């Protein structure tokens, strides 16, 4: 027997956020098994919130760490910690939305999604409390995202990608209302996601073929030294980036986004829009900046075209939408394009501006979906634009919050959206990518129209018979709304601290 086995050195403190998230998720599974049903939701929600906050605390304590650990599979550096922090902050808000049960009796999730829609058993469960397994699933997903950002080799990254996606596919299928489109969304997301994972994995294989390693730093070193045919490397880069762009919902890999955003339960849509975007861009930044930086001149034009396409497609199609969730889906596509502009300004400024943009966008979109979950009629949420006409007269406070969020998304000054766009565009100008900025400004102007149209409809139309009612937000949704609105305004009025933090953090460890 071999007794000379050396245990790997693991810096447990550096990976403590991950360990906390995974630990709480596993505990959540045990809670499902052993805690009596009536108490489960409270225990789960409390545990998940405490877990995420503890992980956030661990991230804050780790500030300034620069270390590669766990057998070289995790890098804890500035960008990883910054984006993990953002991710966990969004996670708290999203968990508040997921835990809400006041707005919809029983919560936004259904207990047994497998029952035939409309059957007697289905009607019986309509008012029954929903599944509490969403909490561990959300925690699994959050843990996967946190690892995705920090992974320092492609294999770990792939596993993290699966871990973050799988619970998302599942949670998409759990909507209480409009169950058929929810299930359709889940299946679409799953099939296309599996396809994208295949692309990513094939890219990993080709990268291994080129560099003889899946480690990002080793690939970086091999770009100069490897004797292999560089076509392998280009193909690897293309396939890996395709897999990642799918998660960021960049055109032409965006087709899943509108259907999935519309079909998924609104808290999950919020979770996806804010957290998945951070995770996917974190990984994209790491792959492009750490492993393929020496090829920047080769991938810049291609991803540049994708960025322009993404912005224009998102903006133009957003104009034609009449459903608010779809509108926000196209807006998220356009915003992915804006972040890509930041990514393309390769360098410290580019990374920091992209990271700041993600923070500003995440809070705004969480706030937007929080409001959407409140506007309802007997059938559940009403997301058609015409039903929102005149809402401002009926419930000015929440409509006001929504207005602020919309203005932020449109990039009006004194909101986080403006600062973020400004940061991204100036970073691109700094490295001389003027064409990206022109496309960005044009699409910002285009996409401002649908946002402002919603605002105008809410405030300037008379409320009519068909105007939906605004449910009073419960404590959880109220808190989420408050956090979203405050962050949006705060990032617009005093962006300095966060900008500095992003700038300090934006150095990748190789």
């Amino acid at each position: 027997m071999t007794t000379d086995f050396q245990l790997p050195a693991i810096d447990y403190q550096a990976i403590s956020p991950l360990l906390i998230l995974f630990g709480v998720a596993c505990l959540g599974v045990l809670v499902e098994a052993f805690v009596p049903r009536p108490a489960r939701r409270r225990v789960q929600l409390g545990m998940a919130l405490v877990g995420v906050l503890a992980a956030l605390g661990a991230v804050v304590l780790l500030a300034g760490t620069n270390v590669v650990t766990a057998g070289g599979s995790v890098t804890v550096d500035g960008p990883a910690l910054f984006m993990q922090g953002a991710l966990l902050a969004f996670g708290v808000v999203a968990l508040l939305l997921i835990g809400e049960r006041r707005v919809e009796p029983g919560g936004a999730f259904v207990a047994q999604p497998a029952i035939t829609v409309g059957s007697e058993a289905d009607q019986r469960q309509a008012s029954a409390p929903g599944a509490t397994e969403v909490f561990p699933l959300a925690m699994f997903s959050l843990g996967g995202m946190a690892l995705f950002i920090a992974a320092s080799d492609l294999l770990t990254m792939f596993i993290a990608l699966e871990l973050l996606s799988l619970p998302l596919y599942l949670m998409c299928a759990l909507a209480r209302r409009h169950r058929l489109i929810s299930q359709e969304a889940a299946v679409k997301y799953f099939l296309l996601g599996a396809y994208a994972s295949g692309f990513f994995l094939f890219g990993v294989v080709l990268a291994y073929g080129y560099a003889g390693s899946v480690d990002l730093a080793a690939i970086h070193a091999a770009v100069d030294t490897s004797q292999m045919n560089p076509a392998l490397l280009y193909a690897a880069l293309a396939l890996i980036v395709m897999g990642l762009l799918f998660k960021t919902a960049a055109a032409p890999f965006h087709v899943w986004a509108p259907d999935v955003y519309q079909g998924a339960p609104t808290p999950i849509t919020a979770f996806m829009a804010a957290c998945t975007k951070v995770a996917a861009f974190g990984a994209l930044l790491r792959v492009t900046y750490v492993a393929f930086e020496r090829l920047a001149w080769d991938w810049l034009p291609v991803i540049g075209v994708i960025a322009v396409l993404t912005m224009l497609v998102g903006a133009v199609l957003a104009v034609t939408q009449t459903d608010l969730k779809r509108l926000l889906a196209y807006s998220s596509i356009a915003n992915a394009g804006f972040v890509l502009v930041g990514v393309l300004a390769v360098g410290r400024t580019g990374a920091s501006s992209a990271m700041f943009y993600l923070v500003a966008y995440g809070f705004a979109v969480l706030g937007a979906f929080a409001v959407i979950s409140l506007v309802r009629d007997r059938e559940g949420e009403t997301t058609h634009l015409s039903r929102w006409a005149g809402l401002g007269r009926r419930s000015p406070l929440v409509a006001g919050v929504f207005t602020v969020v919309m203005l932020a998304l449109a990039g009006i000054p004194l909101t986080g959206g403006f600062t973020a766009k400004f940061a991204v565009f100036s970073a691109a100008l700094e490295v001389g990518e003027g064409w990206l900025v022109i496309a960005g400004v044009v699409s910002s102007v285009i996409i401002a129209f649908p946002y402002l149209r919603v605002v105008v409809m809410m405030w300037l139309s008379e409320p009519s018979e068909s105007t939906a009612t605004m449910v009073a937000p419960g404590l959880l949704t109220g808190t989420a709304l408050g956090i979203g609105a405050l962050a949006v305004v705060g990032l617009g009025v005093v962006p300095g601290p966060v900008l500095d933090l992003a700038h300090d953090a934006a150095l990748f460890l190789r």
Partner: protein
Amino acid sequence: MTVADVLLLGLGAVAVGAGLCVVTTAHLVRAGLYLVVCLGALAGMFLVLTAELVAWVQVLIYVGAVVVLLLFAVMLTRAPIGASGDLDRPGWPGLLVGAGAGLGLAALFVDAYRWTSVSLPDGPDGPGSAGVLGGELFRSWVLPFEVLSVLLLAALVGAIIVSRPDVGASDRGAER
């Protein structure tokens, strides 16, 4: 050409052919069986490359469990014997994309490797042996490995919640 080359070429041809059959056949269960052949050929390639552990685990997990579950699902639902007429037949776009991607990647590989040869590891302590694999797994890949188990746990939980039919029925019965 050595024996290993011939074996690898033959097994590769079998795997590719079986893979093609999987996507082109209209017999649902036979598609599963072709998948078995494809995965089995892959396991054979691992064997030729002296990765015995990987080869047999491939047989045990993929051939012995995954495809059986697949067949199980097919049989639970319809268990059709003979061709299913309502399947999506591979149309021109599918053929074009599939063939294009396949041939493109094949050309890439052929061009990248040409006549590069790699000598097979010899002896009981090659990179495919159980001891070396175990050491790697618990040394440099320990975190991904553990995360993988978390992923499987998440998948398990998910499988249960999307498929369970009567949550709380027994509890309600007990209350009554």
